[in-house]
């Protein structure tokens, strides 16, 4: 009896104060979160004090005094700071993530569509591929590509010479391709951007024309002409020229050879990008399949009945709708791929984990600082991808009018 009256009085109490009812749980949640974080940081601080470890980010400015194998886009050597080493690691992580996402998407879409192919062999092959690659742990696949496959590549002296052109070579020490040396390269780049902008507006115009008058233009050929002719003109009249620096085989001792010059793509990057794309592509393929199968049969039949070819049906009717189903789970796969790239440490690809949370951590001993920075970096990368994909998702979502 008593109990009943108290409960009702509590609910009465809140009923009379809707604002309090609204804010109290939120205030408690915030208090709880602050308390937990406060407690953890206090605890860490006490333990660090006890063990004579201080906390600070000053070490980032100190000389790193170690070298990194692969440092594209950033001038780096051991005389540079730990902050620069961090940047190298971060860029390497971004590079492998971008390459991985690019190939995983292409492969995933192709495999996903082929799985639904009426051709039995293609459909079955795609299914077998998916089942094999998504069910073997990624780390094992990574070791397989790195230690088993790439290791069967020849030594630099007997490198695979593509088409016997003496311009690019593949060996156990990596893929060597020519380096582009531009004169007035920025003008060339500007011309490409300019042509892209022109194409963008032309396509918009064509679409409007088609909607209003039904007139169709050869969009593809016009675009192709613009993007080839305009940059080509910069060569003829803009003073743009392109030279190549080819990789050259150098003998370092009786049996040791290595390539010099050109751009080297280290085998660690190849193995990592390969493993990440092949693995993630299986999940994307399943997303694509789910997206396409999620579109009702009637849509395809309707498209066929108005005379669209199967290709047009896929492009104009099925895909625009399927994308709405495909994009959200694919975002997850992009995030997974980015985070999985931290397995790089196992095969010596100098990513953020190997360089910063590895060597730098070891040399400075600043575990808490470095791991925090590393975690924040992955968090920022993931959030950036999420924001972009959410924007894209919104863009293609059904617009209620």
């Amino acid at each position, binding site marked *: 009896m008593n109990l009943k009256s108290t409960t009702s009085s509590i609910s009465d109490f809140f009923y009379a104060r809707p604002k309090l009812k609204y804010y109290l749980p939120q205030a408690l949640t915030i208090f709880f979160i602050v308390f937990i974080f406060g407690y953890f940081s206090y605890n860490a601080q006490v333990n660090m004090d006890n063990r004579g470890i201080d906390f600070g980010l000053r070490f980032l400015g100190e000389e790193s005094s170690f070298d990194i*194998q692969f440092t594209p886009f950033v001038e780096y050597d051991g005389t540079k700071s730990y902050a620069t080493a961090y940047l190298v690691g971060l860029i390497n992580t971004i590079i492998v993530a971008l390459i991985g996402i690019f190939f995983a998407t292409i492969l995933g879409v192709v495999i996903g569509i082929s799985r639904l192919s009426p051709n039995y062999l293609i459909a079955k092959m795609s299914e077998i591929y998916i089942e094999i690659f998504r069910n073997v742990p990624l780390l094992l696949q990574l070791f397989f590509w790195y230690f088993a496959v790439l290791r069967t590549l020849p030594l630099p002296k007997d490198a695979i010479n593509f088409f016997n052109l003496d311009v690019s070579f593949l060996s156990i020490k990596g893929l060597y391709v020519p380096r582009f040396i531009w004169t007035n390269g920025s003008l060339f780049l500007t011309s490409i951007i300019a042509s892209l902008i022109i194409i963008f507006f032309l396509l918009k115009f064509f679409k409007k024309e088609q909607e209003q008058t039904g007139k169709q233009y050869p969009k593809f050929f016009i675009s192709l002409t613009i993007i080839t002719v305009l940059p080509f003109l910069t060569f003829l009249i803009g003073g743009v020229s392109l030279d190549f620096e080819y990789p050259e085989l150098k003998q370092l001792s009786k049996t040791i050879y290595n390539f010099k010059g050109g751009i080297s793509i280290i085998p660690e990057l190849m193995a990592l990008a390969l493993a990440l794309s092949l693995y993630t592509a299986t999940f994307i393929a399943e997303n694509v399949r789910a997206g396409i199968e999620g579109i009702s049969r009637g849509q395809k039949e309707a498209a066929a009945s108005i005379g669209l070819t199967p290709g047009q049906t896929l492009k104009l009717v099925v895909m625009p709708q399927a994308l709405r189903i495909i994009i959200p789970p694919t975002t997850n796969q992009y995030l997974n791929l980015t985070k999985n790239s931290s397995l790089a440490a196992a*095969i010596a690809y100098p990513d953020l984990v190997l360089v910063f949370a590895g060597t730098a951590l070891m040399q400075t*001993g600043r575990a808490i600082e470095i791991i925090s920075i590393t975690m924040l970096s992955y968090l920022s990368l993931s959030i950036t991808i999420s924001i972009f994909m959410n924007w894209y998702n919104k863009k293609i979502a059904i617009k209620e009018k």
Partner: protein
Amino acid sequence: MKKMFKHLFSFFAIFAVVMLVMGTESMAAKKSKTLKNTIKKGFVRCGVSQGLPGFSNADASGNWTGVDVDVCRAVAAAVLGDAGKVKFTPLSAKERFTALTAGEIDILSRNTTWTLSRDADIGLTFVGVNFYDGQGFMVRKASGITSTSQFKSGLSACVNIGTTTELNMRDFFTANGITYEPVVFEKADEVVAAYDSGRCDTYTTDKSGLAAQRTKLSNPDDHIVLPETISKEPLGPVVRQGDAVWEDIVRWSLNVMIEAEEYGINSSNADSMKTSKNPQIKRLVGAEGELGAALGLDNDWSLRIIKQVGNYGESYKRNIADTGILPTRGPNELWTKGGLLYVPPAR
């Protein structure tokens, strides 16, 4: 009534055991949290490598052997009376210091180089040197390279992450104006596999490590260790900063092994040495003086180390010489025989 007696009795029994445990604790044990915890747990928590023959390596049935392992066994013999009461935690070079400072292990005996920054910076204290080493290079015999002076720019070098090796290598190549490609792996096994497959032209680490890892290569005889030593690598056990008693126990457990060799005491003659005429020998086997008490241990602590683990020479012979890793003692010979092993007197 009967039940109440039973309860009372068990209460007193527990009380008595607690009092007994507290009573037997010496002053030093009270002062040392690590010692207290070790006695309570009944085993020494020791961080070792993930497998480096001669230093710390587990056999198929999980038994750890090596000179680094023997340091931990000596501490277990001294503190707990049984050299077998050690729990080994294999650690990568990257994890090792964090594991120690975070309190997951109490001794780090993992071929770790004693440097100023490590000693001063990160809450660690080095207690001594159990192996004098230096960094070297291994190359394929067929390469025709017989000296580091033949190294040329463009070389790729396989190396383990998070080691002084990584820094020494850069110092060496930079000083000689050679550009090189460092291929950095997390585990020693992967470094060896990468070097073995031809990914790298040279493999660099401490020379003892090179000698030990060479045995893992598919064709050990096809490889040579170059004669040059590019760095000083005094390897030794490490403890957490701030527990002076524990630090002393580990330091003197190691020192006793070295000093026992100096005085000719070994695992088989230790007991008979109790009646030796030499007071220094008698002190080392606990027949004279009160050395144990100063460390918070009983007086047989050093005798147990010598009997159960052996002196340094025995440990070296068993783990490094007889396994064919490094047949000669080199700098790891006693100072009386032209080596570097010179420890303060145990008195």
